[in-house]
């Protein structure tokens, strides 16, 4: 079995394309602020994906430009967006009920760290003078059926963001199911980390970088989607 699917590490856009490809047709998806937003650029019309924005909408369209900008129509990042046919609006409690009730198929989030068992840290650096702000991060982390993380594997200082146990304050416990990084796609869960594919490196090279034991994902788990 050949784990490697790319000869080179993936840039942000290529990684977004990879995530988009893995989203099943007809899914309801929430894309977090930042890097995950790029995924929307690579969703194909035939995938028939419905985007949720937690400030109160299903059927969100692309970012609004020019005359289409409407201050009453924004996404969770407070960016003006557009409305697709079949959209619906609802209030904040109903909108978070969609997330919290487990109705979203996939939520894609950025992260500071993900632990071997899928704990997520993405809201707070823990710095003593930092003003904490959480927004919907904890709801997204605990609510969706699958939580995908998109991040670089290493910090600027070269430390792995996949860790044995998160040193940053947690967003959610055991919630992440898959981690898309520039160097590999990881599956996380109660049994630890497995690698679905490496991107421009071998599993052995990857293991050098990551301080938790890695194994190749089983063939069934390795199937995209």
């Amino acid at each position, binding site marked *: 079995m050949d784990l490697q699917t790319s000869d080179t590490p993936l840039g942000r856009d290529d990684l977004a394309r990879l995530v988009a490809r893995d989203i099943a047709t007809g899914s309801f998806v929430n894309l977090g602020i930042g890097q995950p937003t790029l995924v929307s650029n690579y969703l194909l019309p035939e995938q028939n994906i419905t985007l949720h924005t937690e400030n109160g909408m299903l059927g969100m369209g692309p970012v609004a430009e020019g005359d289409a900008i*409407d201050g009453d*129509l924004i996404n969770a990042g407070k960016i003006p967006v557009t409305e697709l046919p079949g959209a619906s609006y609802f209030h904040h409690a109903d909108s978070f009920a969609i997330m919290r009730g487990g109705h979203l198929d996939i939520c894609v989030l950025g992260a500071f760290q993900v632990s071997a068992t899928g704990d997520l840290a993405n809201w707070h650096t823990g710095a003593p003078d930092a003003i904490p*702000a959480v927004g919907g*991060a*904890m709801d997204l982390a605990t609510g969706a059926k699958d939580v995908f993380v998109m991040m670089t594997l290493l910090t600027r200082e070269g430390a792995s963001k996949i860790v044995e146990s998160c040193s940053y304050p947690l967003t959610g416990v055991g919630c992440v199911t898959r981690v898309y990084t520039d160097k590999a796609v990881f599956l996380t869960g109660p049994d630890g980390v497995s690698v679905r594919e490496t991107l421009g490196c071998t599993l052995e090279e990857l293991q050098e970088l990551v301080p938790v034991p890695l194994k190749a994902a089983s063939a069934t788990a390795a199937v995209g989607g």
Partner: protein
Amino acid sequence: MLNFVDTVQEAVSGIKDGSTVMIGGFGNAGQPFELIDALMDCGARELTVVNNNAGQGDQGLALLIKEGRVKKMICSFPRQSDSWHFDAKYKAGQIELELVPQGNLAERIRAAGAGIGGFFTPTGYGTMLAEGKETRMIDGRGQVFETPVHADVALIKALTADGAGNLVYRKTARNFGPIMAAAARHTIAQVSGIVPVGGIDPENVVTPGIYVNSIVKVA
């Protein structure tokens, strides 16, 4: 009792020192800017404010905070690129912060309006935002006990009111309006238009008039 008032000043005139005030809006969408300005002018102090954020730039809620009128913020996302007035007060220890995950905030507001005494939710379990809170395992999942957030007053923005106080909103500006209207003892709505009783299709009413006390049209 429902009142239609002529000015935002009149609408907020009953807000007292020490009140808990919910303010609708997410970003600028649905923010009742004119009512917030009127609250600023009316002079009430020692306020507890419930809003998703803690003010931005040099307007609205940010000014209330700057002027020291807000004792405590209950919000999910206080820190933004332009939340300098909150940041300064917070670092100076001059404002209290109750940080709540956004969905818990929405659900706690909804609980207040719906007469729920408290509820368990998985959101926040195992995080520092659950520290000191009651937890339990339910169906194999860790859950945190959260309590309702009531308010004395809600300031919200809607698109249109009818003569019975029924409200409709516009697009994502709906956000916190309907749940805050239900959670506050006195709800003040600024609207862009007022139509006669029966001017909103009963199927499309979002906030029934029972939740609305004062309505003011803002040009």
